């Protein structure tokens, strides 16, 4: 059952080929068998999952199924789940049992989804390799000496290893798309504000966005259909109609214009990565799309702009962790300042502390104009570049990541080199656009991904493009051999 896509599993449940309990037990069994090694889950919620599966079976028998009834899904451990530990990959929240449930989780449960558990991630979603997690790194199922990417590394690895048929992720600078590429799966970051951030632990609030991760574009469409929509509890969630993503999957793409930004294929890029994405674009050309070259001149400044804006917002968001109201508290504080400082220093890991310090510095008196204000101005230049490109093209395409999965430990002590893992994904977050990464082949046995970027609210169109590509190719169907092999 684990080789089937979510869409196929939905059909199997509807046809009575298997029950939700059988399906859920099958995936729980795979987690039990393989996850000690891969480490993609922080918490497995077996009892709740089986109870939800039984309820789903009853609903299906009564003909009252929703979009996701009986389908097992793994949630990133950044989404609050009432009664279940929500750690955000941090010692700070190691004992935090959320008192409420995030809108994303609630909406998927309302459609009948079964929660398998909570997936591992970089601490507070800050990282591109899943090595900053308090619960240890996740291993890439294609080569366990390599990283799964991050920050949604657990989500991507559990999908790659077929330990879950679907997962949620969040993407602040590439955290859905980059791990999707490194694990050979499909992941979509929707338009900023398309999916509610309520109950999603905040990293950088003007960039954070939740989205679906799955084995195919069709699976992501099915999940997004359940996740998207206005939420009065998140004032940045947009009150726009949710499109029929499933209905748009098979739209004709003849005449579609694909823009290829020259900045996504710099001379310094690994030739194999460039060739791989160019080949994917050629495949779509064969299906009737037109390809034109475009330029996004300011995109080269997206990583520096991001590493001012995201840490600045993080330093403010993470000030709530004070050892007083919830989360880690140090032993025997001498006074209030000692309580704050030791609780925070013990609870946060090195990368989180670095980003808080960078953000605090960038916002401090005398530096605000040079850093924060300038970064916000550059952010507008980047958005304007995209807007100009979308006057001429329907979607933009290029590599998702500049390299395939790197070795564990390779970049751990070099933040700036780690930050470059997101060089092609960050611009999209700064502009607030939707983008998807889909598997487009292998280099030396490791998966590669290509990004499809759409205009605001055009999730339906990019899912359509990816679906057409996946009907013509089978890269998304490749799975690693787990067994007794390394």
């Amino acid at each position, binding site marked *: 059952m684990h080789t089937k896509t979510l869409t196929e599993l939905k059909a199997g449940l509807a046809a009575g080929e298997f029950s939700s309990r059988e399906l859920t037990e099958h995936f729980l069994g795979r987690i039990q068998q393989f996850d000690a090694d891969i480490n993609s889950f922080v918490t497995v919620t077996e009892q709740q999952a089986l109870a939800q599966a039984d309820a789903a079976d009853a609903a299906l028998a009564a003909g009252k199924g929703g979009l996701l009834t009986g389908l097992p899904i793994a949630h990133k451990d950044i989404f609050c789940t009432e009664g279940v530990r929500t750690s955000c990959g941090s010692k700070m929240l190691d004992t*935090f*049992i959320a*008192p*409420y449930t995030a809108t994303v989780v609630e909406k998927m449960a309302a459609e009948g989804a079964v929660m398998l558990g909570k997936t591992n991630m970089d601490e507070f979603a800050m990282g591109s390799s899943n090595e900053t997690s308090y619960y240890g790194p996740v291993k890439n199922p294609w080569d366990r000496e390599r990283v799964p990417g991050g920050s949604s590394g657990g989500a991507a690895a559990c999908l790659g290893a077929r330990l879950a048929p679907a997962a949620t992720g969040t993407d602040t600078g590439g955290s859905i798309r980059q791990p999707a590429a490194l694990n050979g799966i499909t992941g979509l970051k929707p338009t*900023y504000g398309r999916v509610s951030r309520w109950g999603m632990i905040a990293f950088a609030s*003007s960039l954070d966005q939740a989205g679906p991760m799955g084995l195919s574009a069709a699976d992501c469409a099915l999940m997004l259909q359940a996740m998207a929509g206005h939420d*009065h509890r998140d*004032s*940045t969630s*947009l009150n726009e109609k949710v499109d029929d993503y499933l209905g748009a999957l098979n739209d004709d793409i003849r005449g579609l214009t694909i823009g290829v930004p020259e900045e996504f294929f710099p001379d310094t890029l690994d030739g194999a990565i460039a060739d791989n994405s160019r080949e994917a674009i050629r495949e779509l050309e064969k299906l009737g799309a037109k390809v034109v070259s475009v330029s996004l001149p300011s995109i*080269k*400044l997206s*990583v*520096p*702009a991001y*590493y*001012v804006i995201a840490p600045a917002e993080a330093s403010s968001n993470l*000030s709530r962790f*004070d050892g*007083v*109201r*919830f*989360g*880690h*508290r140090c032993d025997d*504080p001498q*006074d*209030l*300042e000692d*309580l704050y*400082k030791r609780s*925070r*220093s013990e609870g946060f890991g090195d990368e989180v*502390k*670095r980003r*808080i*310090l960078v953000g*605090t*510095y*960038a916002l*401090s008196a005398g*530096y605000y104009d*040079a*850093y924060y*204000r*300038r*970064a*916000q*101005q*550059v*952010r*507008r*230049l980047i*958005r304007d570049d995209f807007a100009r490109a979308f006057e001429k093209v329907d979607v933009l395409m290029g590599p998702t990541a500049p390299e395939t999965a790197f070795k564990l430990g390779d970049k751990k002590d*070099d*933040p*700036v080199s780690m*930050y470059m893992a997101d060089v092609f994904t960050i611009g999209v977050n700064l502009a*607030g656009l939707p983008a998807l990464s889909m598997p487009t082949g292998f280099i030396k046995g490791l998966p590669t991904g290509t990004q499809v970027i759409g205009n*605001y609210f055009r999730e339906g169109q990019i899912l359509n493009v990816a679906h057409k590509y996946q009907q013509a190719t089978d890269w998304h169907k490749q799975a690693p051999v787990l067994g007794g092999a390394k």
Partner: protein
Amino acid sequence: MAIDSKVVAQVAHLARLKVDPADTDALSNRLNDILAMVDQLQQADVTDVAPMAHPLDVTQPLRDDTVSEPNVRDKAMDIAPAAEDGCFLVPRVIE
């Protein structure tokens, strides 16, 4: 705009983080690496460019001024590291 260990200590205090003096040099090197990368922003011509705080030009939605959320005080107090009689406990701040 290089930062030294003195600046690191000041910023750490502002962020209420404790930095081990033995780690300050290594940390300031890392932070300087990051700031050197970020300094590429100085190349950009941002004359007359308005700062962008939000990806989409939207206005804040308004709602009726009525009670919409239940009182969750007890649930919120339950997860506090130290609480008593509906108050969060902290070390004495007034002698």
